[in-house]
């Protein structure tokens, strides 16, 4: 069913069937649990703007679902997202879509992070 591009040939771990079986045995992880896993790349609550990884906060639910299902089905070449998306069920993708749709599409911090830290240091100096 799933077809990885030729350049992503190395995969492993449990099979799709074993993945389905585990999903059926335990309650689904919450949308927050699933969505917070994305923050290392897409920023806290999906609200990071950078050149290689688009923000997810505030994304239209239907758009998120379509994108994730297209990634999962490997409908177009992608660098990482097929690899990430291929293990999620429809219900999990919908829960993530709900989670990101309700987040504010605001940049989480000021664009120059180092300047922001320095400014904070001055503002909050204790001594």
């Amino acid at each position, binding site marked *: 069913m799933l077809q990885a591009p030729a350049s992503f040939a190395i995969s492993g771990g449990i099979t799709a069937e074993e993945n389905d079986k585990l999903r059926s045995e335990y309650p689904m992880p919450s949308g927050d649990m699933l969505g*917070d896993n994305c923050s*290392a790349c897409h920023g806290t609550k999906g609200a990071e703007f950078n050149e290689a*990884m688009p923000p997810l906060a505030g994304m239209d639910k239907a758009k998120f679902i379509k994108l994730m299902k297209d990634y999962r089905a490997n409908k177009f070449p992608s660098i990482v997202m097929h690899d990430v998306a291929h293990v999620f069920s429809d219900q999990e993708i919908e829960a993530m879509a709900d989670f990101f749709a309700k987040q504010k599409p605001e940049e989480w911090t000021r664009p120059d992070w180092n300047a922001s*830290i320095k400014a*904070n240091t001055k503002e909050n100096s204790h001594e």
Partner: protein
Amino acid sequence: MNKITRRDLIKLFGAGALSTGLMGASSLAFAKQSAHIVIVGGGVGGAASAKYMRLLNPDVRITIVEPEPKYIFCPGSNEVVAGFDTLETLTVDYNTLKSRYAVNVIQDRATEIDYANKKLKLAKGDVLSYDKLIVSPGPDFKYGAVEGYSKQLAEGDFPAAWHAGPQTLTLRDQINALPQGGTVLISSPVDPYRCPPAPYERASFVANKLKETNPTAKVIILDSKDDFIFHDVYLDYWKKEHGLGTADARIEWVPKKAGGHVTKLDTKNRTLTTADGQVHKGDVINIIPPEMAGSFVRMNGLAKGDWAPFNSQDFSTKRDKDVYIIGDSAAADPMPKTGYIASNQAKVVTKAIQAELTGKEIGTPFITNNCVAMAADDWGMTVAETFRYAGNHHAYEESYVMSDPTENPYYRHIRAEVAKNWQRTFRKDIFS
């Protein structure tokens, strides 16, 4: 500079808590207040715990105990060794956690858990009461695994450079000073250790630099393993860029089965001896020692063998349900020891604690590790791993897809861009 004043504590915890003496307060004094979440270690796992706990609950009191005033990210430190980034870029402090997330940061070393009374003792004599204790101190090194090696040598002329910091700069300077045609020896440890692809990324970066400045020099990786993550990608890169397998190879990889496992260091002759008796001479010797759980974890009875076991649903320890273990010290196999994993373990723990505080069911955990590595500035690779809950007394089940060698330079280039982006975004996610 980062000393917490009495005024700060009153601001954070209220005068009531201080009237009994905050540091030696009875748990009764705290019970009247909101729950106190204490975190041992201010690295990625600890800082992520503090921030994500605050995002879930504005009222709990959160304290991090961390000996260092600043934290230096390890992701990106190979770039510092190779000289195209600086430690300053990787260095953060705790001011944002303090000011934006109202986290109390105590600069001290946690020493002992009093499980019966739910107290944490600190090196300078203070005692903290906790309702929940999250332990994330990072790993310690087993220097003794290589005869003749020691912490003192690592801090001197034989840097391990496996915690970003002064040793990173020593190694960088040694490589800069390498005599023409000299040899760099890198000893790669047995699994598990922090950031599995990093020894090979380091070797690649160093070889790339030597290609420019010292083209007859060599890098030899003496490996205690026969395989490693991204093996095919790195070998492909080394063949294409550094003549791997030829007489003039700039880089060599000696797996365990070919005698790569280092057992002995001779500082006087600057040699490494391997398990089958081969002797390698190096102008620069970089031994990455094997690892074990941090001493705090081992000394407080949380480890079984080298690592600390936990209940899979919420990372509470097998020793005590109100004490949690995350990050590199946790026996989390098949999860690799990465910052990405530590940060997502923190999110599982904080969600579980929040569920308990609000009388809700602890949900099903879920963990991903979408990690990146580079061979060169325009040669990146990625691995996407997911870890599914498989019952409280079982390990998580892994599923992964990772980069294969590709002839497509655009894929390699974009993966490297993804790697660089990830480093920046990840640092922001944890510390701002």
